[in-house]
């Protein structure tokens, strides 16, 4: 029996963090769920249970489904998050694969370089792109020249309208979340046995067949983990769309924040939040399903 099995210690070790999480995480979350079936009122705080309305008022959820604003925001969020995940995968997969092929000493430095942006401010990384995408920047000017050279003269532009677009949102999300994709991919690719590749090559497979039949299926857990780590924060992203996005294509995070602070509609903000969480449940279940299967295979 360890020291921690003594009764008093045990209660303290379990009780303290448990109590904290119940009070500051579970309780606020339970309030949000309850709030989503409350009725909006012009009082302060701006909600009530009961009164002229039923105790459990599902009108908010009804509006959530029937008003196109919300459905559209959900679709935009899903499309943007899925696009971000896809581009992160397309860029991150070859990068992770390349990292497994360089020498050990180079690999450590390069991995460090993948992680390093994490330690610099998230806001400033978004800001860096605001500078690059702006109309007067060297980056935009360079891309504009390439564009004008590629397309017919009638399509030529003075500068590319990159800022305040959905394109900008996805680009910056790919930029900020790319390390989340590379690291789990690298972890799963690094474990693969290189002799399997060689065996397949010896038996006459073409390199791309080796990739499709040997490497790709074995790296599936890494793809799922990386995909989830990118998709989930991307779907709920608030900062990036409000800095580089277009107000006419709002993402769900923006809707929650606006409903809460501007419209002062707490029930609606809560209902949208609950719906966003429901959206996260699917991918998370998929992930734990794969995790459980991977552990079962061991």
């Amino acid at each position, binding site marked *: 029996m360890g020291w921690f099995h003594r009764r008093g210690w045990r209660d303290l*070790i379990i009780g303290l963090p448990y109590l904290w999480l119940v009070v*500051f995480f579970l309780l606020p979350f339970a309030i949000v769920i309850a709030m989503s079936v409350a009725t909006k009122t012009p009082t302060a705080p701006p909600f009530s249970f009961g009164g002229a309305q039923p105790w459990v008022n599902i009108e908010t959820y009804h509006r959530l489904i029937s008003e196109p604003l919300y459905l559209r925001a959900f679709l935009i969020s899903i499309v943007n998050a899925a696009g971000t995940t896809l581009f992160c995968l397309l860029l991150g997969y*070859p990068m992770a694969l*390349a990292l497994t092929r360089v020498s050990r000493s180079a690999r450590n430095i390069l991995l460090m370089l993948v992680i390093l942006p994490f*330690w610099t*401010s998230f806001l400033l990384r978004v800001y*860096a792109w605001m500078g690059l995408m702006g109309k007067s920047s060297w*980056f935009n000017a360079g891309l504009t020249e390439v564009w004008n050279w590629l397309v017919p003269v009638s399509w030529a532009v003075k500068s590319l309208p990159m800022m305040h677009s959905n394109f900008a949102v996805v680009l910056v999300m790919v930029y900020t979340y790319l390390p989340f994709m590379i690291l789990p991919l690298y972890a799963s690719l690094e474990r693969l046995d290189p002799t399997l590749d060689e065996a397949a090559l010896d038996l006459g497979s073409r390199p791309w067949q080796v990739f499709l039949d040997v490497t790709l299926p074995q790296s599936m857990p890494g793809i799922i983990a990386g995909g989830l780590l990118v998709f*989930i924060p991307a779907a709920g992203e608030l*900062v990036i769309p409000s800095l580089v996005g277009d107000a006419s294509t709002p993402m769900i995070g923006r809707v929650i924040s606006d409903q809460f602070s501007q419209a002062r509609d707490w029930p609606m903000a809560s209902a949208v939040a609950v719906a966003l969480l429901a959206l996260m449940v699917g991918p998370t279940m998929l992930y734990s399903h794969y995790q459980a299967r991977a552990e079962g295979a061991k």
Partner: protein
Amino acid sequence: MRRRPTFLLSILSFGFAFLYVPILSMVFFSFNASRLATVWGGFSTKWYGALFANKQVGEALLLSLKIAIVSSTVATILGTLAGIALVRFTKFRGRMLFSGLVTAPLIMPEVITGVSALIFFLLLASWIGWPSQRGFTTITLAHITFSMVFVTTIVQARLLQSDQAIEEAAMDLGSRPWQVLVDITLPVISPAILSGWLLAFTISLDDVVITSFTTGPGSTTLPLLIWSKVKLGVTPDINALATLMILCVGIGVAISGVVMNRAEARRLADERLAYRSQA
């Protein structure tokens, strides 16, 4: 023999260019004399001067550091306890809920955490009169809550690797519980506790969304200050601020690299010594 993976290496180079060009561009233009943030107008360090003359920046940085130090320290204590609880106690009432509570904040979108914390604090204020205003306390409470679970994850992983038999042996040999804690358990998980603290510290220092919901009048952290400036557009003094932050991170990473190399070298030397004295 395998061919040189030219295709992969060129994508790798492109990827690193993608990751670092924006950052380097920011550093470069922080020395720009022009008011336009991304058009070169000659070398100047005036934006650094403007930054240091700005009292708001200093105050915001101080508040951010205070919140980060307090919240990461409390988060580390709570998170470590939770990690020990989950690994060492395989059965207790409500364990399922507890392990759920420890994972949920990791995948909860920040907007939802922020909104629910704000609703919670507003309702508390109207029910029991506390917190009468939002600021340092409410931000710190929210930061502790969402960063402690990161500490738990790290400590949990470390404990799962460590050998519980050593603790049991110490108890059998007559150590008192607190001696086992101080002499064995804590030293074993101390690297995890340290990296947990660092992670919690960075998360707190960098947070925008949850802070923006739990803050009140007069409590502007550094990310909130940057956020309000950046919303209005690109300004050159932010380039200077970014460069200084990158410099700090670079120095921090270099120091921790050296320290870790030393610790590793010492550990190897100790092991060699132990081996020789055995032989």
